[in-house]
């Protein structure tokens, strides 16, 4: 018997012969859909019916064009066309509970008899895509955080480098500033050994030695104070003392220095300035010495002034004193204002390297004022007009 003589199986037989496979398809987790090119659904497995929430509905015999169960963006026609193009694609559908699910379609077209049919294997990718999105978001977030942190670290690194440079410059300057008075002391001591010097010269040489020794001592004390303050070891000793005597002493000292430079030095006391106050006289004196000393150092013509005012709070024991130190000196460039109270960072600006002294005066004043619960601030500064600093100090007013 030839192949053409073999009887063809009937449709019923063919349908029945699919039965073992039908069971297999029904058991699969993936969704299976078989339909013809008119959109008539020939088979939809349990997984698919469950996905659509239509367990009890028979899909077989229904047409896709009746209702697009699968995508709220594509029309039924577009979906059918895409299925028969044998592409892989993703649809978005709502479950019976109203959840959006992303379905990944893999389709295969085949011909049975003269009819074109397509089989689609559909997988729910929603969790996978959610996870993918979460991973992408997390990665993006992580990248942003890494970028921010890298940027912060770069800034901190730069700051650390600058601070290191400033400290190196500071040490270089300090060694210069310590050696200079020692040079004068040694040199003038050698001159004093000579027999043939006049009394006037001898007196002058001794005066120079004394001046440089005092300057050296001040510098060493400043440096040690700064170290103590930075290590939180500086101790405040409060007691009642005469504010007026302290101011008078400062005036006497600095009038001489000002006159030597051809400067005027004025002091003005406001109304109700108390005779005596309760605070640390050494710290207060140190702060004012630094402020006035700096003002005179950096002023080459004009004047320096100290003005003292009080702000009284009725019924309170604590009052606030304000000491304004103004000068007509070289001023401080504006880009430098924020650094002026920092101990090492001022050395980032090479200009300060050329000035005599440790350069720690303002940093020390700033820190000491804080220890006294007060404040030292740069009120104004202009390279054409000079500067004004203010030292504010809460004090208890006590009679002697």
């Amino acid at each position: 018997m030839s192949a053409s003589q073999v009887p063809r199986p009937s449709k019923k037989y063919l349908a029945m012969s699919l039965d073992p496979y039908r069971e297999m398809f029904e058991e699969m987790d993936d969704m299976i859909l078989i339909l013809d090119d008119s959109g008539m659904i020939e088979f939809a497995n349990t997984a698919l019916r469950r996905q659509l929430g239509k367990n009890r509905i028979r899909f077989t015999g229904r047409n896709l064009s009746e209702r697009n169960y699968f995508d709220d963006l594509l029309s039924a026609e577009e979906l059918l066309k895409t299925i028969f193009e044998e592409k892989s694609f993703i649809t978005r559908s709502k479950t019976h509970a109203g959840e959006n699910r992303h379905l990944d379609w893999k389709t295969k077209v085949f011909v049975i008899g003269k009819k074109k049919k397509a089989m689609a294997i559909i997988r729910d990718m929603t969790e996978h895509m959610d996870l993918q999105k979460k991973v992408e978001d997390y990665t993006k977030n992580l990248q942003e955080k890494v970028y921010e942190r890298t940027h912060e670290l770069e800034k901190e690194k730069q700051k650390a480098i600058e601070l290191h440079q400033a400290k190196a410059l500071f040490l270089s300057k300090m060694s210069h500033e310590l050696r200079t008075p020692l040079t004068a002391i040694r040199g003038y001591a050698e001159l004093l050994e000579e027999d043939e010097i006049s009394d006037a010269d001898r007196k002058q040489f001794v005066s120079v030695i004394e001046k440089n020794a005092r300057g050296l001592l001040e510098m060493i004390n400043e440096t040690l104070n700064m170290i103590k303050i930075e290590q939180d070891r500086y101790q405040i000793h409060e007691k009642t003392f005469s504010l007026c005597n302290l101011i008078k002493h400062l005036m006497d000292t600095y009038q001489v220095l000002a006159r030597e430079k051809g400067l005027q030095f004025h002091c003005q006391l406001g109304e109700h300035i108390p005779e005596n106050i309760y605070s640390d006289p050494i710290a207060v004196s140190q702060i004012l010495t630094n402020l006035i000393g700096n003002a005179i150092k950096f002023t080459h013509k004009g004047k320096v002034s100290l003005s003292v005012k009080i702000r009284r709070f009725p019924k309170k024991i604590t009052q606030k004193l304000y000491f304004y130190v103004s000068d007509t000196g070289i001023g401080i460039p504006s880009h430098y204002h924020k650094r002026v109270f920092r101990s090492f960072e001022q050395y980032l600006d090479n200009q300060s390297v050329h000035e005599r002294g440790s350069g720690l005066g303002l940093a020390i004043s700033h820190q000491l004022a804080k220890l006294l619960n007060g404040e030292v601030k740069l009120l104004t500064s202009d390279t054409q007009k000079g500067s004004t600093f203010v030292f504010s100090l809460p004090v208890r007013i006590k009679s002697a």
Partner: protein
Amino acid sequence: MSQHRILLIEDDEDLATLYRIGLEKEGFIVYTSKNGLQGITKAIEKEVDLVLLDLMMPLADGRDVLAMLRLNAKSQNIPVIIISNLNPGTLDLSQYDDQVIDYWVKSEITPKMLASRLQSYFS
């Protein structure tokens, strides 16, 4: 006794007086300037044999002075000895090696030592 002419460019008055007295005792003729700008003019006017140059000065520091000395034909060949309390090497002066003949740290020399070293140099 030496009659060499020395220009001392030093902004610290005490140190300038110290070195002037010490060197004049040993027969040097000493001119002083408080700053570099004044110093350049004096170096040329007084036809000095050597410049003792401080480095840390306001306005024009030692490097600026060296640069200016080099610009003028009358001053570019005057030998310079740096005398400073900065550690050698703090400032890069290598480009002036042809003019700077030595670097002395102030705190290590007294006026007598300074005079003695200069006498050795000139002899």
